[in-house]
């Protein structure tokens, strides 16, 4: 009689989230989008469904409502064989098995996974993910593997092109399905498109696959005079309303995008309807970029771009680095972002003619060259609720608590800049 295979639990954990602010304030790091899919979805495609995850305590309540498996359940860390996977790992073209010998998989000095038997877990006696990983690193053999582990927001953008290609391969089905109008054109290999059954490509739209594949998910509409260059992925129910969607771009679900976008990720439920350029950037969810909002992604001297990470200017190592825009941030018409700008969550930014500062703290207003408190947290949450309601999504009590928590942890950096800029209003006597 064949022995029953023991259970091999898969738990995804997050670490290093502070270096991924602002795009990780309101989501676990494994919910970042890279390619068509989220980092978690890639892990699950590769290793099978997850049994649980471990995130910051502040995120647990909100994400229990969104994820299909337990969040922060310590009982998952004992009683069965376990593979712990780093949620920052980009599982594209990766050969790792859920089952296998006990070992710690490393990418350089980053842990990608730790695979342990139930007996070893019991012997180690650790109760937390951090404790298990530390003990496993000492007790188990290490194996170096070729996997990207994102550390900073620009890493997600840089990993995007390969992730799109991998997601395209994983889709399997290629070619034109859906409604492809007379007068729409595929320039390049026609097998390098995936147009879902309910997607539409209108007359004069051009899909250019000469540099890579193009994915148009269910419900996508590509309106006239839109040019899409691959590799690019467009998520379900997104509308491309004219303009240039340049190569290496991912647009998530339920977005409205026009103008010019290049080598960027728009996470989902965001709008960039009008003209303006977004390049080498990551815009979160529920972002609205007003007309002519533009970011620079290349310095005039072609030197590498530095970005504020936790208050310190950090070299991205690349001369092409754009803006990183947190969830629920809105920009007014004619807002300009300098190269390597960090924008927090839930900001309200109004252009003032020149580029905005390279760091805009969460929950701030910016106008007349000044960072200000604005109308406060309550009105920002009300705006978020209204914006989500327009798309039929509820802002839950847990979501609101997470926003309030984020407001508190960003208070010090915001207050410092508000007080600094407030001096510009001193009455001259």
């Amino acid at each position, binding site marked *: 009689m064949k022995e029953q295979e023991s259970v091999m639990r898969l738990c995804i954990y997050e670490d290093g989230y502070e270096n991924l602010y602002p795009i990780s304030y309101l989501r676990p790091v494994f919910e970042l989008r890279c390619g068509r899919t989220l980092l978690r979805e890639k892990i699950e495609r590769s290793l099978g469904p997850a049994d649980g995850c471990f995130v910051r305590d502040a995120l647990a309540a909100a994400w229990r409502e969104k994820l299909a498996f337990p969040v922060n359940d310590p009982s998952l860390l004992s009683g069965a064989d376990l593979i712990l996977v780093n949620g920052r790992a980009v599982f594209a073209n990766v050969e790792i098995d859920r089952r296998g010998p006990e070992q710690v998989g490393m990418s350089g000095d980053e842990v990608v996974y730790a695979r342990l038997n139930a007996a070893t877990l019991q012997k180690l006696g650790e109760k937390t993910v951090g404790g298990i990983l530390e003990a496993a690193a000492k007790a188990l053999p290490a194996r170096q593997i070729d996997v990207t582990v994102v550390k900073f927001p620009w890493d997600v953008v840089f990993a995007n092109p390969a992730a799109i290609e991998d997601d395209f391969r994983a889709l399997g089905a290629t070619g034109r399905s859906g409604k492809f109008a007379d007068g729409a054109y595929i320039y390049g290999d026609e097998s390098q498109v995936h147009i879902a059954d309910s997607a539409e490509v209108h007359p004069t739209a051009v899909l250019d696959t000469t540099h890579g594949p193009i994915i148009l998910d269910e419900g996508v509409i590509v309106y006239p005079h839109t040019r899409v260059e691959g590799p690019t992925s467009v998520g379900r129910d997104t509308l491309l309303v004219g303009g240039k969607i340049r190569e290496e771009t991912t647009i998530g679900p339920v977005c409205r995008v026009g103008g010019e976008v290049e080598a960027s990720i728009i996470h989902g439920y965001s709008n960039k309807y009008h003209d303006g350029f977004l390049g080498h950037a990551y815009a979160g969810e529920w972002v609205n970029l007003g007309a002519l909002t533009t970011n620079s992604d290349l310095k005039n001297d072609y030197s590498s771009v530095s970005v504020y990470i936790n208050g310190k200017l950090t070299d991205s190592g690349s001369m092409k680095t754009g803006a990183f825009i947190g969830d629920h941030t809105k920009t007014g018409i004619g807002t300009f972002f300098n190269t390597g700008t960090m924008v927090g969550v839930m900001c309200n930014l109004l252009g003032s003619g020149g580029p905005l500062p390279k760091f805009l703290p969460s929950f701030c207003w910016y*106008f007349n060259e000044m960072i200000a408190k604005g109308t406060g947290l309550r009105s920002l949450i009300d705006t978020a609720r209204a914006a989500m309601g327009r798309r039929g999504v509820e802002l839950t009590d847990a979501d609101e608590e997470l926003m309030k928590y984020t407001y508190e942890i960003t208070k010090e950096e915001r207050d410092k800049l508000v007080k600094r800029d407030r001096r510009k209003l001193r009455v001259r006597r």
Partner: protein
Amino acid sequence: MATVEERIKQVVSSVLNVPEDEVKSEHSFSVDLGAESIQSVELVAAFEEEFDIDMDEDEALQVQTVGAAVDFISKVMKEQGKL
């Protein structure tokens, strides 16, 4: 030493570009003095800077008139040991 009311009127004059002697206690910031939403936010910031206080934005933005601002800011100053 200028009174709280005088200082408030100086700030209003500076932010809203209205001559100081035309700013009256009964004036509404929006209706009489022409403050739009951004300028209301700017006024709150300017008052905080002038009086070195920290105001709750929700409460501050409920204040409609110059006179009410005098009362509100005086209250906040007392609470924060500035008066």
